[in-house]
């Protein structure tokens, strides 16, 4: 079920062009080639939401993941119960990132930022940070989380969990970025909601 579709934040060059009051034709053209659209989707079977931001360069999809799924994923791969519970207590999304441009590009999760509904800023916890903690606890498992950063060739994409220090059911805005041909662009998905704990 397609819940809604809206234009959201533009990449940086377009935002500047719009604010600077450039000619209308230029503005429309510029925005048309750099705007990202966000579609929210509700799975009719599970009731879980997903958000897909589509941009000519780079697309990002966030899919709500229930804590039970996180517990099952990690418990069946040997993580101690306490550790599976700990990561299940975080706000976790299945995350898909994709190079939709015709050149290589790079992205770095450490550059992404979120702002919670009460205005608190933060950034996703990185895979390397989780792995460092797991290594200290003697847990060598290293998959399922989205890698910290990557350079994508044409057609490349990746998927994995991203984790946010937010409560279940909490709402936030996520600003994400990527760099292509030396230029860094950003987009924002507003009103993303962490999965409920049910």
């Amino acid at each position: 079920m397609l819940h809604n579709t809206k234009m959201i934040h533009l990449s940086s060059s377009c935002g500047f062009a719009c604010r600077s009051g450039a000619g209308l034709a230029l503005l429309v053209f510029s925005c048309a080639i750099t705007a990202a659209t966000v579609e929210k989707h509700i799975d009719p079977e599970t009731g879980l939401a997903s958000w897909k931001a589509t941009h000519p360069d780079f697309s990002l999809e966030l899919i709500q993941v229930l804590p039970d799924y996180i517990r099952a994923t990690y418990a069946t791969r040997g993580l101690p119960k306490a550790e599976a519970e700990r990561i299940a207590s975080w706000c976790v999304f299945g995350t898909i990132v994709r190079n939709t441009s015709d050149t290589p590009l790079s992205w770095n999760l450490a550059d992404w930022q979120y702002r919670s509904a009460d205005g608190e800023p933060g950034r996703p916890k990185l895979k390397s940070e989780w792995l460092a903690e797991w290594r200290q606890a003697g847990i060598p498992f290293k998959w399922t989380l989205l890698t910290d950063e990557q350079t994508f060739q044409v057609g490349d994409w990746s998927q994995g969990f991203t984790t946010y220090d937010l409560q279940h059911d909490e709402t936030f805005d996520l600003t994400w970025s990527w760099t292509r041909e030396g230029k860094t662009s950003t987009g924002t998905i507003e009103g993303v909601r962490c999965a409920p704990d049910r």
Partner: protein
Amino acid sequence: MHRIADTSKLSYLLCLCLCLSAGALTAQPLGHTLTRLDKPFTPENFVLKDLDGETHELADYRGKVVLVNFWGTWCPPCIEEMPSMERLYQTLGDQPFTVLAVNQWETEEHVFPFMGQLEVYPSFPILFDPTSRIAEAFGVKGLPSSFILDPEGRVVYVAQGGRNFDHPEVVKLITDLLPATTTP
């Protein structure tokens, strides 16, 4: 003891169902673009066991084109692309070509029942890299990741993320790598 086993099995089935439903949620046509490396490299040799306990050494495949694919059962695009790898394997079955699907972290007991759930049961070797040492040696950052080796054992094409491996353009670039005398 039985209770623990049952719980583990239930968790696995829950995980499997959710994994497949997550895959359905995000299903979209797989691309077929592979990146040709400007500087091909020779990866570290490996010896890994398959589902039957037989060992496979990468060096033994010298003279063949090899698609080395890193995957896991929890990874929806890994499962989505696997039928296309099987079709590719069947299409080029009489050529010096093979697919080696290298599972990450899991065990035969985990993977074997999973394979029965697939749309097409793979007939190419499913290998086990339980510590992910081989994936690290290849520089894998996420699953699935694929590497195409030429008959000299050099990685010449790479792909990060799921692909449609029996797309005509992929079939062509692989057949172009085959030794000249065997090209159909």
